């Protein structure tokens, strides 16, 4: 396991492939970005329109959840290869946190 740096010269085909991939990725980023702005707009309009708080709060929470997922998958590359374990542990953490909060809310504070 010698830790030398290997210098890899890319072939033409590899270069083309990488270029195309990056272009795809960029398109994904832009699309997600647009969606995120749109979701934010919905949230603001709802508040501005003065709907009932019982409607606004759950919807905003839902939108926030979607935003987090988009952020993780499109901007923090969680869909990329080799991120399976990271994702797994993140979801475990969220799960434990969720159970904890749920229990405290239902049996202590309710």
């Amino acid at each position, binding site marked *: 396991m010698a830790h030398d740096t290997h210098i890899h010269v890319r072939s033409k085909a590899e270069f083309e492939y990488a270029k195309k991939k990056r272009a795809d990725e960029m398109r994904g980023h832009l699309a997600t970005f647009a969606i995120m702005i749109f979701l934010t707009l919905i949230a603001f309009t709802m508040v501005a329109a003065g709907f009932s708080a019982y409607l606004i709060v759950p919807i905003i929470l839902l939108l926030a959840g979607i935003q987090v997922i988009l952020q993780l998958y499109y901007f923090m590359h969680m869909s990329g290869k080799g991120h399976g374990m990271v994702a797994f*542990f993140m979801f475990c*953490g969220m799960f434990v946190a969720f159970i*904890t909060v749920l229990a*405290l809310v239902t049996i202590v504070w309710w």
Partner: protein
Amino acid sequence: MSSIAQKKGFGATIWDFMTTVDHKKIAILYLISGGFFFLVGGIEAMMIRIQLAKAGNDFLSAGLYNEIITMHGTTMIFLASMPILLAFMNAIMPLQIGARDVAFPFLNSLGFWLFFFGGIFLNLSWFMGGAPDAGWTNYASLALASEGHGIDFYTLGLTISGFGTLIAGINFLVTIINMRAPGMTYMRMPLFTWTTFVASALILLAFPPLTVGLFFMVFDRLFGASFFAVEMGGNTIIWEHLFWIFGHPEVYILILPAFGIFSEIFAIFSRKRLFGYTALVFATILIGFYGFMVWAHHMFTVGLGPTANAVFALATMIIAVPTGIKIFNWLLTIWGGSISFTTPMIYAVAFIPSFVAGGVTGVMQAIAPLDYQLHDSYFIVAHFHYVIVGGVVLAILAGTHLYWPKMFGTMLSEKLGKWTFWFFFIGFHLTFFIQHFLGLMGMPRRVYTFGADQGWDLFNAISSAGAIFMAIGVIILLVNVVMTTIKNERVGNDPWGDGRTLEWAIPSPPPFYNFAQTPLVRGLDSFWIEKMEGNKKGMIFAEPLGDIHMPNNSFIPFVMSLGMFVASFGALYFLDGDKPWALAVLVIGLLITFGSMLVRSLKDDLGFHITKAELLKDAKGGNTDGH
């Protein structure tokens, strides 16, 4: 730092251990300090049993008794059992997956020193105005009312050592995910590695709630906050939740590695592949998963209401299912095997009925209405000692015999080992079996004495007698260790003769780089496969012999932890009106810690290379003992 064998002086050896980043040496540090705390906790246990040996005894005062049971529980869980298990994980897990070290050797050392200084800090309370006295669970109303600084030693000490454990857990996770040798797929990992993996995941998820709870407690007691102070609008129950959200996973952090050790033992000494390997793996994961959904079974009598009690009672009972799956798999592993009753194997066989007894009482306690009767009685004491001593401690003793040759290159005496076993095993059941009945007869736990007219005299006397047997067993073990070390008869790679996994394919103890060439793993029980195919080398290699890159030793982890230790004294005395120097101590301690972090960040430490020539010289029989 050459790989050439040389005799070191005493001072040089100490320095070597203080700066080491080698997982095998850190394992030895964990074993020695965990062993030391095990003896301290054991002495405390003996004092408890002396006090309770007869009615109305006045060997200990009521206040001192509270301090001793608190320190006994805290020491045994945090400073003895867990570190000793971490010792085995450190020593064996990297070898089992064919790695040269853990993923972060520097952090490994930092984790140890944080644990060590946290433990020392906690125990210094004995000499500095009194130990904590609110039980190892440290329930908030009691803890906030406790006078003196005992509780502060508890909260600060556990915060520091908790950081250490958290670091160790993360390190093991990354190691297992990233450093497995080629061919070592997840479903080829030895069971001890699997249980290390799941236990580390539990550490990662369970320690943060404890840290949060401890922080709240520190702020309540030392800086005038009121998270748990009811009269100020706080809520004392939240501590109980935070503690048990950590506490129940904690008991699985302890028992899962124990299961791992026993799984290895059953396979080795039955000379058979583990029965139901896949089922064992999934049961381990499932236990880890359920472990987070049952904590309120410790709080049935708090008044959570019937719905919450029912939900948590059901969830708790479900955990018994994967545990049962494991028991059956072990039995079927032994079944039809060609068994050799070595010391580790005797422990493993004795573990099954002992642990099952503890599991059965656990399920009884999970029945919420019944728990209203059992809660806070000696029945509970009997339950958790059956699972912890009958499970974890038996595994620790078995693991000590099993892995001693791999860690130290010598073999503990089998004869003395069996003596230890019999004394300990008989003593254990004598001490704790009868406590079930004391509980059913109404004896509450955590009382410092009882009256002669209550009818508990005889059973308590029997229980105390049992404790003496256990103590004799432990003393024989110590004699065994000393004699083995003095005799110093070196053993080969596979001293038990039936090793199945990679650690037995390399010298005992392994050279400091573990594997001169990274092995290529071809299946479960990789060493066994090679043995069966007549491969004298014990493994096939995934790479040609070449230079190996190794990390340098470092003194920084020690200094960093020392800084936390110093800072804790400052925090402890912060609000005492008459100690103006406390703030200075706090600041100095933090400066030491952050200063050493800065040094670590700014100074490049690129490690060093072992050349191919040196490796070839080692292979000719030069260096095997890790120096």
